[in-house]
């Protein structure tokens, strides 16, 4: 009986194997191959092997883009940690009724198109827009700040787009927390601050780390935020790849950039798995 069951089950996984091999593994392999090929004069690629695309990345202009992207991702992730962790933590401590309400309230912006939410920021940040007029009305500034198309605008946009991921991962791990451990520590004379840093923070680390991964990785690739809120002034790796692909039509170089970004991403994920000692990202599913 078991034999028959096993014999037929493979039929179920065939489409999945097929799809994963053809539309995930093969395209990734093609990207790697492409990154070692020389670009043809006018269109497409030649069959010549080269390492030039990788050498190109070390040109100061491009290297600088990588460094800038990492810096921005780091900056945004730091802000998100300090905003998202307390939010997730406080939220998990609310009463059951309010907890559900806040989850629902979080879901609405989370499910709303990121583009649309960015557009709201354009209206707010635009010179002489809502923010400028509000700040001038309360006499915080005399002149319009003209925040749109500046670095801070991009930072706000990124934080805004990615904060819910952090909140939800922290929330789900604080929810699972065994509060009796903290009570025990308090009974034994630990101050609440001490108890937080030695117990709560440690036990909710998987959630915090998965939140960091979920914000750090996308923040390197969200080229449209930099595009819309930063004008053409802020160029991130994402923008560079898009530009090389669509405008410069240098596909091998775009592929090399993507390979490096993929390696960077897998390093972060591997590090996460090592530190958090889990395989799945908390709160994602």
């Amino acid at each position, binding site marked *: 009986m078991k034999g028959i069951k096993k014999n037929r089950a493979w039929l179920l996984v065939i489409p999945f194997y097929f799809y994963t091999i053809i539309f995930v593994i093969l395209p990734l392999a093609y990207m790697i191959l492409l990154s070692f090929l020389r670009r043809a004069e006018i269109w497409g690629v030649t069959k010549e092997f080269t390492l030039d695309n990788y050498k190109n990345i070390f040109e100061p202009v491009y290297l600088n883009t990588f460094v800038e992207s990492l810096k921005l991702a780091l900056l945004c992730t730091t802000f998100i940690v300090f905003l998202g962790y307390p939010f997730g933590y*406080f939220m998990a401590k609310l009463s059951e009724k309010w907890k559900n309400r806040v989850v629902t309230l*979080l879901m609405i912006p989370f499910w709303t198109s990121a583009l649309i939410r960015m557009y709201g920021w354009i209206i707010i940040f635009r010179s002489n827009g809502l923010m400028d007029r509000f700040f001038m009305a309360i006499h915080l500034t005399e002149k319009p700040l003209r925040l749109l198309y500046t670095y801070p605008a991009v930072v706000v946009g990124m934080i805004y787009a990615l904060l819910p991921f952090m909140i939800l991962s922290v929330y789900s791990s604080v929810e699972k927390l065994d509060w009796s451990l903290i009570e025990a520590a308090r009974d034994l004379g630990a101050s609440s601050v001490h108890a937080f840093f030695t117990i709560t923070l440690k036990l909710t680390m998987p959630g915090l780390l998965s939140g960091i991964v979920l914000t750090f990785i996308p923040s390197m690739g969200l080229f449209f935020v930099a595009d819309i809120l930063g004008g053409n002034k802020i160029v991130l790796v994402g923008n560079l790849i898009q530009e090389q692909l669509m405008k410069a039509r240098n596909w091998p170089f775009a592929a090399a950039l993507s390979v490096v970004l993929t390696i960077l991403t897998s390093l972060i994920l591997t590090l996460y798995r090592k530190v958090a000692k889990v395989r799945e990202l908390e709160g994602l599913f």
Partner: protein
Amino acid sequence: MKNRTKIPNMFLIIILVIMYLPILVIIVYSFNASKISTVWEGVSLRWYQELFRDRSMMEAVRNSLILAGLSCINAAIIGTMAAVGMMRISWKSKGMIAYFSTIPIMIPEIILGMVFMVFFSFLGLPFGMVTLVLAHTAFCIPYVFTMVRSRLIGMDVSLEEAARDLGAGEIKVFFTITLPLIAPAIVSGMLLSFAMSFDDVVISIFVTGATTNTLPVKIYTQMKNGVSPEINALSTIMLLGTILVIGGSEVIRRKR
């Protein structure tokens, strides 16, 4: 005691207010009569009328609905079959394939878009709805697969075994026992897939054809070349849709 809960609550409220600020701004300005968003000229439904008259916009809405619908159905079929099948096979490759299948949601979207763009043009596929559905299905499968799999892992196997011992055939067991138990996971995987596909701009930009516009791609191009307040009206309608879906699923969840 009261003071101790005040600071956390204030913090939650402030963050939520900031989160809703851009959304509220869009809703308010969708009723603005003026074409310039910095000027307020009174309440009007002008942009809603123009939106419904804008044929290219309506076509983009239709394309996005078709795309998200097809991708989430594909993902539901392939992902559910795989999650069920994977529990019953002992192939060495299954761990590796499961790992590779989740890559599309692990790597930055831009890389996925780039990879599909170069690969599809290598295959010589014409860019349009077909390439869009192929690409979107690839990143929707992991959502359904992972959700159904974790549901199956937490499931009581003895139910299936009991039914089989009582003489029910494999297919019957699947449809009467397994499917109802994993249905919630399939539905939430599909909902998430639909939302992700409907919302996607990065991957779509790379794999869409010159004539097939999806809604986010259209909005994105408009945002880059000066926006029409139509976008405000459209966003408000989409927001209303989102609220209805979330509210609806909340009501269903509470009734259980």
